[in-house]
């Protein structure tokens, strides 16, 4: 075992990096911001074939299906149900609309903003063809739910296997 003489960085001619309290605070704030951004709800949901036009945003969705139905939900807090349009073709659902800014902005102004405002549009390719005449949608507590019925031709059927002889 060998003994290594203790030398400070100063004695080696190296100045320790100087951290002022403000730079440490800046660093901590930046780390907090990164962590909060990482763990917060997704700002923009990645879509399959969606493209985001400038000034527009994409709502996040979830989709579930049974043999006969498809149900799609989107979280759209703070939107007037009259400002939402749902259109359906055989293999595509489009949710679009506009989120208007709150009246509070008429005071001294916003000091902090995180939510999305303006137009939004989300096109969702459907896993199977649906009957456009059998669609229902309702909006409750900021959550839009769209229920679709699959076309009879596309519903899966159990095919019996016939044995010869």
């Amino acid at each position, binding site marked *: 075992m060998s003994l290594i003489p203790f030398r400070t960085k100063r004695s080696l001619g190296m100045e320790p990096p100087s951290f002022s309290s403000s730079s440490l605070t800046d660093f901590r704030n930046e780390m907090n911001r990164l962590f*909060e951004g990482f*763990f*917060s*709800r*997704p700002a923009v*949901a*990645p879509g399959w074939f969606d493209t985001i036009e400038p000034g527009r945003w994409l709502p*996040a*969705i*979830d*989709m*579930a*299906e*049974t*043999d006969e*139905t*498809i*149900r799609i*939900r989107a*979280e*759209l*807090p*703070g*939107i*007037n*149900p*009259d400002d*939402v*349009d*749902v*259109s359906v073709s055989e293999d595509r659902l489009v949710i679009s609309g506009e989120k208007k800014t*709150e009246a*509070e*902005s008429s*005071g*001294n*102004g*916003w*000091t*902090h*903003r*995180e*939510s*999305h405002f303006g137009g939004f549009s989300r096109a969702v390719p459907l*896993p199977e063809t649906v009957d456009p005449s059998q*669609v*229902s*949608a*309702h*909006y*409750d*507590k*900021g*959550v*839009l*739910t769209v*229920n679709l019925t699959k076309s009879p031709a596309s519903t899966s059927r159990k095919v019996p296997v016939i044995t010869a002889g």
Partner: protein
Amino acid sequence: MIASPQTTAPAAGSPPVSPEAGLTYRPNVDIADCGDSLVLIADIPGSSAEAIDVRFEDGVLSIDAAVLPRPAAGTTVRREYGIGGYRRSFQLGDGFDGGQIEAGYQHGVLTVRIPRLAAVQPRTIPVKAS
């Protein structure tokens, strides 16, 4: 095309999707300064007025919200957001009147109005000409 708000009962035979235990999300919040008060607007979709707890203690405003179970509908094909509670707190400091805070919930958005104490509200002092 959108029907009026309604509560959908779970379909027979399909259990509701309960909020995932332990998962808590940080809601997006906008803050407006209205002079005599601060207005805090938080996106909390899927909750209810009864399930939201707003507290003001030692200069800290905290929001704690549970979300309601959502009816299940077969197999999940795509999922871009989780279901869990919402929690966030703000250090506001002194100068706010905790007894006069008002909160409301509509369309998945919580609005909290926090009045400033009269003693610390900005005042305009008229200057008289002699």
